[in-house]
């Protein structure tokens, strides 16, 4: 929760960003519809079944994939399972505290999870070891390393990239040779922040701090919608929501090229 001094600074910052936005500008010189530079590095963690480090501007996120064998859910005995979590360690920001995941981290993890799950990115039906008894459980752990805004998109992209090159560790479990994790086409997440009347894509930290409302949409390869999440205490009109999705469809194509390139 904010303390008074932070509040005051934030009010000044907000006025400044809104004033800039009225002129169609952002504090770091970007267009409303411009992402910061995105870089993806893969396979950097040896101990993980898959991994990727994604930078969006100064935000840096590391996703690691681990597989384990467990029981299937009773209502899907012929499918593997997946679990997504987001860690916001105090390493990544002066505002992060140690301890169990806060609501922020849980929300990010669950939205990313829905994007992956609903786009059927991981082919869970191919992760059965013994039907009804033993299936692979895919753990997607997203570790934030440097927090400068937009963890929804950075986390989602890191998770997608890490899954893209992950393996099933058959060897470690005495089940033969390792094989690639069967995946389809990844979801692409695109996040907007609204302050004043401006709605910008890929909000940086300061923009997030002053944002009244947030909107994330995860799109599949056809530009169809697989997950959405409105956040914060602000409001969107129906038109704004529709615009966001239309804008996201363009961004998603570009990010998809980066990911699949």
């Amino acid at each position, binding site marked *: *929760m904010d303390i008074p001094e932070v*509040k005051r600074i934030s009010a000044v910052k907000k006025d400044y960003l809104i004033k800039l936005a009225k002129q169609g500008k952002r504090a770091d010189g970007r267009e409303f519809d411009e992402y910061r530079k995105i870089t993806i590095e893969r396979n950097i963690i040896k101990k993980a079944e898959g991994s990727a480090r994604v930078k969006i501007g100064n935000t840096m996120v590391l996703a690691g994939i681990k597989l384990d064998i467990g029981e299937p859910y009773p209502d899907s005995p012929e499918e593997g399972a997946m679990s997504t979590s987001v860690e916001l360690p105090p390493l990544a920001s002066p505002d992060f505290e140690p301890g169990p995941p806060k609501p922020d981290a849980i929300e990010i993890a669950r939205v990313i999870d829905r994007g992956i799950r609903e786009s059927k990115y991981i082919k869970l039906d191919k992760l059965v070891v013994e039907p009804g008894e033993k299936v692979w459980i895919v753990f997607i752990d997203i570790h934030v390393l440097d927090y400068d805004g937009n963890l929804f998109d950075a986390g989602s992209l890191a998770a997608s990239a890490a899954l893209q090159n992950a393996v099933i560790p058959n060897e470690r479990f005495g089940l033969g040779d390792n094989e690639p994790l069967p995946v389809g086409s990844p979801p692409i997440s695109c996040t907007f922040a609204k302050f004043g009347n401006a709605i910008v894509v890929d909000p940086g930290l300061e923009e997030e701090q002053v944002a009244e409302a947030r909107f994330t949409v995860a799109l599949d390869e056809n530009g169809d919608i*697989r997950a959405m999440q409105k956040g914060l205490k602000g409001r969107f009109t129906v038109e704004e929501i529709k615009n966001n999705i239309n804008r996201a469809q363009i961004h998603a194509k570009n990010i998809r090229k980066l990911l699949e390139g």
Partner: protein
Amino acid sequence: MGELIKDGLRIDGRKPDELRPIKIEAGVLYRADGSAYVEWGGNKVLAAVYGPRELLPKHMQDPTKAVVNARYNMASFSVEDRKRPGPDRRSIEISKVTSEALESVIFTELFPRAVIDINIEILDAEAGTRCAGITAAAVALADAGIPMRDIPAACAAGKVDGQVVLDLRKEEDQEGEADLPIAIAPRTEEILLLQMDGHLTYKEFEEALELAIKGSKYVSKLQKEALRRKYKKVEEE
């Protein structure tokens, strides 16, 4: 496919744009500052509001406005397999987006350093509990006399057997293709809450959103009727 809609009707006989039966009652609890009970299809939901009251410990206070703290909780017997008491990740997320949706209409700046606690208990659950919960909470806030720019109303649309429908029931939620719960400020039709998972083309989304807004506005009517009945009853007493 083809199992959930037959001859244009859904498994419980509803038309695609038809809500389940909804019953709303305001002012049902003795201790709470405001309260409401909602039955919505097979859902039974109770909401209670306490506050505005001083937020303690003091270092949590916001000197510029009240903190809005909604807590969504499922009773352990409200679901098929007993739920362990206490918040799980799903409840924590719903509590967060519910808090945000409700805060967006409350004049929080009138109550610096205060907290408004909103407690939502799901007593019987059958798909759509978050919309039922927000709907109940909004009535409880009004019943508590909390000043709001509008009384939020919530409703979900979704996709079943390839068709956009209103207000999914359990089987439709589990076997359907998409769920889109929203909450709106009925007067301006602004979106306060919107979540979605599943698969919708852009066109389907437009259709579903329109339907969900229509549903929310109908829910809004029921909310206001419930509040009117309550005021009337109080006046008569």
